[in-house]
C-alpha cells in the first residue's frame, strides 16, 4: 500500500512493502512495529533504534504523533485520496472568512471590537474567562469584523462561533 504522508510541512512517500519492510522516499528500511494493546502507544524498532510514539487523532482530524518529546502533526493519504483532493482544487479557503471559535468553554468578559471594525493581525477580539484566567483571543490576520455573535457576560461552549472576520 502506497501513502503520501505529510509530517508538519514535509511530504514523504511511504510504501508498506510487507509487515517488516517499509520504503520511505524510495529507501527501504527494516521495521519492527508493535502496538501496545488498549493504548495509543506504539513501539517501532528501526535498525536497532527503539522509538516509542503516542499517536492520536487531533482536533483537525489529523494524526498527532508524540515522538521523543516532539509533537508532530501527520496527514496520511493514499494515492486515490490525494488525486481526489488535487482534483477538488487546492487552496480553497485562503482568502475566505475566518471565524473565531471558543477554544474552550468559558465566560465572555469583553468583546473588544465592533461589527464593521477594520482590524490588524494580533489585535485582541475577545477576552474569555476560563480556568480562572482571563485569556485574550487575537485575530490571526488583518481584516474586517463582519459579524459578532456574543456579548460580555455570555457563557460559551467549546468551538462556539464568536466573531467573523473577512
Amino acid at each position, binding site marked *: 500500500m502506497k501513502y503520501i504522508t505529510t509530517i508538519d510541512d514535509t511530504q514523504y512517500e*511511504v510504501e508498506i512493502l510487507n509487515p517488516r519492510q517499509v520504503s520511505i522516499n524510495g529507501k527501504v528500511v527494516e521495521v519492527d512495529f508493535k502496538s501496545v494493546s488498549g493504548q*495509543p502507544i506504539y513501539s*517501532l524498532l528501526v535498525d536497532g533504534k527503539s522509538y516509542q510514539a503516542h*499517536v492520536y487523532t487531533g482536533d483537525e482530524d489529523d494524526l498527532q504523533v508524540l*515522538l521523543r*518529546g516532539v509533537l508532530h502533526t501527520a496527514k496520511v493519504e493514499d494515492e486515490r485520496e490525494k488525486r481526489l483532493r488535487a482534483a477538488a482544487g487546492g487552496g480553497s479557503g485562503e482568502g475566505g472568512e475566518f471565524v473565531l471559535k471558543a477554544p*474552550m468553554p468559558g465566560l465572555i468578559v469583553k468583546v473588544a471590537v465592533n461589527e464593521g471594525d477594520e482590524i490588524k493581525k494580533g489585535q485582541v477580539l475577545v477576552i474569555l474567562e*476560563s*480556568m480562572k484566567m482571563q485569556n485574550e483571543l487575537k485575530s490571526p490576520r488583518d481584516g474586517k469584523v463582519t459579524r459578532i455573535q456574543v456579548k460580555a457576560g455570555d457563557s460559551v461552549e467549546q468551538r462556539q462561533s464568536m466573531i467573523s472576520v473577512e
Partner: protein
Amino acid sequence: MFNKVLIANRGEIAVRIIRACRELGMQTVAVYSEADRQALHVRLADEAYYIGPAPSRESYLRMDHILDVAKKAGAGGIHPGYGFLAERSDFSQACVDAGISFIGPKPSAIAAMGDKAIARATVAAAGVPVVPGTEGEGSLTDEELLKAAQSIGFPLLIKATAGGGGKGMREVRNLEEMPELLESARREALAAFGDGNVYLEKLIEGARHIEFQVIADEDGNTIHLGERECSLQRRHQKLLEEAPSPFIDEDEEFRQKMGAVAVKAAKAVGYVNAGTIEFLVDKDKNFYFLEMNTRLQVEHPITEEVTGLDIVTEQLRIARGRPLSLTQEQVRMQGWAIECRVNAEDPHNNFLPSTGFISHLTVPTGPGVRVDTGVYAGFNISPYYDSLISKLVVKGESRAQAILRMRRALEEYHVVGVKTNIPFHQRILEQARFIAGNFDTRFVEERFSLEKAEEGMETHPEIAAIVATLVANDQTQRSAHIISRGKRDTSNWKWVSRWERMHR
C-alpha cells in the same frame, strides 16, 4: 481531639490532604460540585457530599453549604487547601464559631496578612524590611495612586489588595500608561476576589522570588523549614520551583538570616500552623517582605522532599493541639528538589487553557520521582477551575542530578486528550541560564522563547512518517475488517462479550 476532617477543596490538593489523613488514620469527608462527581478526591475519600453547581461561587466558595456538610458528617476539622476559602478570615471564624477546628491560622492572622497594606505595616513595625510602596489603608483612589506612584518612582507594580497568584497585577513603566492599567487591574481583581482594591509597589529589577516555609504550633513555637526558589514565573504565575534556592545555595548564614526574619514576620501576627513568607531578593542580597501566604502552598512538596518532613501531617498535628515535632536545630535540608507544575494549557498557543477528556495517561515513576495528581485516565478536565492538573516533583542528591532526573521524568510523562505545558518545562530545563541558576522573575518573559528553544531540537520526521503511516494503515485494515463482519459477530465489543460470558 477530632478524628474526621472535611477537605474544603478539590483537585490534587484535596487528594494530597486525604492521603495525609489516611496516613494518620483519620476519616475524610470530600465535598464536590456538579462538575466533580467523578473527581479523584470524591473517589478516595471515606465520605463525599454534593455542595452545588460547577461554578466555584456556587459550590467550593459556599461556606454555608460546606459547614452544613461538616456538621452533618460530624467532621471535627476542616482543611481548606489553597485557593477557594483558604485565606478567608470569615471562613476561619465561621469554623471556630461552629466548634470546628480550622486547619490553618487564626482569623486574626489571616485578616492581618490578607490585606496586603496592613500586612506590610505590621511586619515593618516588627522590623522586617518591606518593598517601598503604598502602605497604610490600601483603599486609595486612582488619583491618590497616581500621585503616590510619582514618589515611589517607576517601574512599579499595581497589585490587588485581596489577591495572590498574579491576578489583578500590572506592571507600570511610566505615568502615561498607568490609568488604563489601573482600570484593568481593578477589573481583574474584582472578578477574581470580589474586591477591586489595589496598591502600588516598587518593582525590584532583576529580583528573585524566594520564599520561606514557616510552621508554628499553638504554644508559639515558630520555626522555618528553609527556602524555595520561585523565580521561574510567567505572567506572575509560578511554573517551576526548587528547594533550596540556587541563589542562596551554600550560604547558610544568609539562609538563617532570612529564615529568622521570616519567623519574625510570622510571629508579628501570632501565626499558628503552616504559612509562607515571600521575599523579593535583589542581586546584592537585599531582601524585602512581599507578602505572607497564610495557607499551604502549591509548592510545599519540594520543602517536604529536602527536609523529610510531611507538612500536611504536621498541619493536622498542630490543629490537634500537638507541639511541633521538631526544633529549628533539627531542621536539615538534604539534597535538591524541583517541582514542575503540569497545567492543562497549550504552551504553543499563548498558554491557552485546554479542557477535555484525558483518554490516556502515563505517569512517571522510579527513583526520586513524586507525582501529586488530581486527575486520571478517564477524567474530564472542566473549564471551571484552575488548570493545574498535577505536580511533578523530583529529588536528587544535587541540583544537577535533580535537573537530569526531572528531564527523564518529563520524558516519561504522557497526557493524551488535553494539551499540557510539559514541552515548556522540557525546554526550560535545557536553558544554559536555568542550568547555571542565573535567572530572575522575568526570565521566562524576557529571555525565553519556546519557539526558539525548539528550533535546535533533534527531531525524527522520517520515523514519525513511518509510524503515522503504519498506524493509519492498521486503522484502515481494522475498520475494513469490522465493517465486513456480520452484525451478530460482536465478539470484539467488550460489554457484549462480558455479558455473554456471564450468561452462557
